[in-house]
């Protein structure tokens, strides 16, 4: 691996020496993002963006935000409990969460808990459907969720502050402060959030309340960009989170619940960028620390834990070939990860990855990308991956897009090293996928409909008969093949008449995720999933409504009708009024009602979700 590293470095030193010094044209306003891959390498993909006002309309949880606004199915163990995602019918470790360009899925279990981070501090969340292992590595199979801090250089100095305070049912208090500074050579973001809730909602149709469901968490994010010269800038990003949750009980006896869970995360990223003429270089250094503690008995001091430290060094370069309307990108990454749990001694895993992307613009009618990636991992063989993306704009507002990619999910530390059960013979899961879509976009309407197929093989499954020499011992093996086929549809409409403004956003997806062995739908994947968001603004007043529908969900492999979760249809609605609406100063009050129809619904057996509830918020921007 060392040899490979040296070769790559030498290669790029050579390229560097050809570079010329030339000033870049600076615009009045320059947006700066840590992750350029999403913007640059999504040719042929669908990306939807959840902006900060939408994020703030869904303060309840990251889970609720995604459930009501994206084509992702979330499986939640009661509101605020453990939460995992299924994107395009894939399994929980097949949705990657990307923080400023870095995959933050846990190395212990391969997932991100969607109730173990708060996202209100981020400026935008992008959701890209489809595989992205070339750009984001393991787990970017069904799709990727991107948490982004947006920084901006501006010729005009500007300082913005925002305070959002929310009081809700079940003694829920959520507070957020954000600070933004933009200047011509300096951009700074800073934010802190604190949330707490008793979360003791009534379990409808029972005598119980949600017991042992309280949570509190503190988040602190900061980021900054410094223009060092006309050619170079330096950026830093930090995100820190500390949370404590109790895991609520399930029917028939919620009072049996006794668990407590703590999360501690620190994520730090430093980026140096140099852009001279057609050549751009970037060096990134990152450190990620994640720790969880699980208390089986909330009163006791004893706990189980998992802790990981990941160190990343990246070298990115891109060359723009103006006369061919083409770009070449190179991404080199070295990662060293240390992981341990109370059951697993500390293990170190190292990986060197190199990817290349070639991007071609054909007369601004067609855009084409070809990508390849190879990883060298100290623990297992990671397959060579490749992807193609294509977008054609035959008419002004119409486009046709297509992509294909090979993606993977590596075995987790738990899969490999769990004492007495881990399996060192595991290989990464791989999947091949294809997508074709057509869309239309103008100033008021945006439509995209696509059909996709994912062929996943060697899915890692824990099973009591995994090791024939040791029947009864649960071990993970590369077992399952799953074929997903589906359709994703998104329709957005935004129109203004006089002072009236209407918004309509619809996501619908249909997924058949068939286990080859059983020829049945895989468990916890609904075939139909839809959400609709309606908005109306008039002068200082705005109204919104969110609804989500998902079809019934089977929980057994044979799709037994005796074990299923019924379909759900849930409506939230709210309104906002701007008490103060001046340039640079706004005071908005809002009221939101969740589960307006007071439906008794579950996303996990025997765990009712909250009954009708309210929150009131004050949002002050100055």
């Amino acid at each position: 691996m060392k040899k490979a590293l040296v070769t790559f470095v030498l290669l790029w030193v050579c390229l560097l020496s050809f570079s010329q010094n030339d000033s870049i044209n600076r615009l009045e306003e320059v947006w700066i993002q840590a992750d350029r891959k999403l913007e640059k390498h999504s040719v042929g993909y669908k990306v939807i963006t959840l902006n900060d006002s939408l994020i703030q309309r869904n303060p309840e949880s990251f889970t609720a935000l995604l459930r009501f606004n994206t084509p992702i199915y979330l499986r939640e163990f009661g509101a605020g409990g453990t939460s995992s995602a299924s994107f395009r019918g894939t399994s929980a470790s097949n949705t990657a969460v990307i923080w400023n360009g870095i995959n933050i899925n846990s190395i212990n279990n391969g997932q991100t808990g969607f109730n173990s981070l708060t996202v209100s501090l981020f400026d935008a969340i992008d959701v890209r459907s489809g595989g992205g292992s070339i750009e984001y590595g393991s787990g970017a199979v069904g799709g990727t969720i991107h948490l982004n801090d947006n920084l901006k250089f501006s010729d005009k100095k500007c300082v913005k502050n925002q305070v959002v305070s929310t009081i809700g049912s079940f003694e829920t208090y959520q507070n957020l402060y954000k600070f933004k500074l933009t200047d011509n050579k300096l951009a700074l973001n800073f934010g802190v959030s604190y949330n707490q809730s008793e979360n003791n909602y009534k379990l409808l149709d029972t005598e119980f309340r949600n017991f042992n469901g309280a949570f509190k968490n503190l988040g602190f994010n900061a980021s900054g960009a410094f223009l060092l010269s006309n050619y170079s800038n330096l950026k830093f990003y930090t995100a820190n989170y500390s949370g404590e949750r109790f895991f609520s009980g399930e029917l028939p006896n919620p009072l049996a619940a006794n668990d407590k869970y703590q999360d501690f995360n620190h994520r730090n990223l430093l980026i140096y960028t140099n852009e001279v003429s057609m050549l751009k270089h970037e060096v990134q250094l990152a450190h990620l620390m994640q720790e969880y503690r699980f208390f089986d008995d909330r009163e006791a001091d004893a706990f189980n834990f998992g802790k990981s430290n990941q160190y990343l060094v990246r070298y990115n370069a891109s060359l723009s070939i103006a006369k061919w309307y083409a770009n070449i990108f190179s991404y080199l990454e070295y990662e060293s990860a240390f992981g341990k749990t109370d059951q697993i001694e500390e293990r170190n895993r190292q990986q060197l990855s190199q990817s290349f992307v070639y991007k071609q613009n054909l007369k601004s009618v067609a855009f084409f990308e070809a990508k390849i990636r190879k990883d060298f991992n100290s623990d297992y063989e990671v397959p060579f991956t490749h992807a193609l993306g294509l977008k054609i704009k035959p008419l002004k507002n119409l486009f046709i897009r297509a992509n294909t990619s090979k993606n993977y999910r590596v075995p987790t530390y738990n899969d490999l090293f769990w004492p007495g059960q881990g399996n060192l013979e595991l290989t990464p899961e791989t999947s091949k996928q294809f997508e074709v879509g057509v869309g239309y976009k103008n100033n008021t309407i945006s439509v995209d409909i696509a059909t996709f197929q994912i062929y996943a093989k060697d899915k890692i499954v824990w099973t009591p008969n995994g090791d024939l020499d040791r029947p009864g011992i649960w071990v993970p093996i590369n077992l399952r093949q799953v074929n997903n086929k589906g359709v994703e549809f998104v329709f957005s409409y935004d129109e203004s008449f006089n002072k009236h403004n209407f918004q309509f956003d619809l996501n619908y997806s249909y997924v058949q995720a068939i286990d080859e062995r059983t020829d049945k739908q895989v468990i916890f994947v609904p075939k139909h999933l839809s959400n609709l968001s309606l908005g109306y603004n008039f002068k200082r007043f705005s109204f919104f409504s969110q609804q989500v529908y998902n079809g019934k969900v089977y929980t057994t492999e044979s799709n037994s009708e005796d074990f299923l979760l019924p379909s759900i249809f849930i409506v939230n609605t709210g309104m906002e009024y701007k008490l103060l609406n001046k340039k640079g100063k706004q005071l908005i009050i809002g009221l939101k009602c969740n589960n307006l129809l007071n439906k008794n619904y579950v996303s996990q057996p025997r765990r009712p979700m909250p009954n009708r509830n309210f929150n009131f918020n004050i949002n002050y921007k100055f």
Partner: protein
Amino acid sequence: MRISKFLTKLFILSVLFLTACTSDDDGVAASKGNFENGILVSGEGSGAGTGSISFISDDFETVNQLIYKGVNTAELGTFLQSLAFDAQRAFIVVDNANSVTVVDRFTFESEAVITTDLITPRYMAVAADKGYVTNWGSTSDDADDFIAVIDLNSYTVESTIPVGNGPEQIIAKDGKLYVSHKGAFTTNNIISVIDLVDNSVEEITVKDNPDELFFNSNGDLVVLSQGRTLFDADFNVIGDTLGSISIINVNSLSIDTELVFAEGEHPSLMVLDNNKIYYGLSGEIYEMDENSTTLPSTPVLTAEGFLYGMEVENNNIYTLNASFSDLSTLNVYDLNSKEKVQTIPVALGASKVYFN
């Protein structure tokens, strides 16, 4: 469970007798409920679905899933550990739900759900008007384990008897309780003998992780210890402790015979039928005479799939191939021909077979 089986036999005999007497008049005896004259299979449940009980009629013609839910429109939760019986009632022990649900054993209509003063309940024995339930207590405390004493008239826990770590299966016999201590979240190697007169507890040390136990026809207590796998501080496997079948004289509380398994062999599941002991080892079932002084060297048959529950009756061996992601399978083998004679879908995570 032995008691329940004995009662069941008595009951079946009485029904046969009654039927014989009344068949000329009415044709059939009055049914006690839909779930009479059949087999009950309990399943632990999992993330895929609730713990549940399946009913299979004696002629294997009728199969009903989720019978508690069907009758009571409520779920039992996870993990349904075991059932206990008296003449008219069944007691369903669900460990994560900290509950004992009382139903009519023939109709499965719910009579009570006991949810207080139980902490990870595992097994229950019935004597007179009392139920005795083994409880693991808190996961982080090895010293708070206990037997909950339930008044079967008021359905409340009236007292507790503190015992050593990890009480598992329990038998009531002649005014005493016999408890195997498998060790809950860790390990243990004792059998507790509790005198119900004064709740005094005596302990017998056996091999590690004792689980199944019953009385043989000589009146001796037979205990199956599974043994366990040893890890070093870094959780590398460094060896095993031995499993055994221990035959205990309950008067002297001494081990008369100890049949020790080879290192690395961890037997599980053991039942007695017709003076023969049957036990499971690595998915294979072995048969031996209850007075045998050596372990058999060859299995009587290989159970299909993941052997997670077993019973033997009337020359049939009932094995459970448990699935935790789907319905499980009950396989019935003829002990003479070793042929599989029935394959029936049963509860998710199926672990126990009872004759009703």
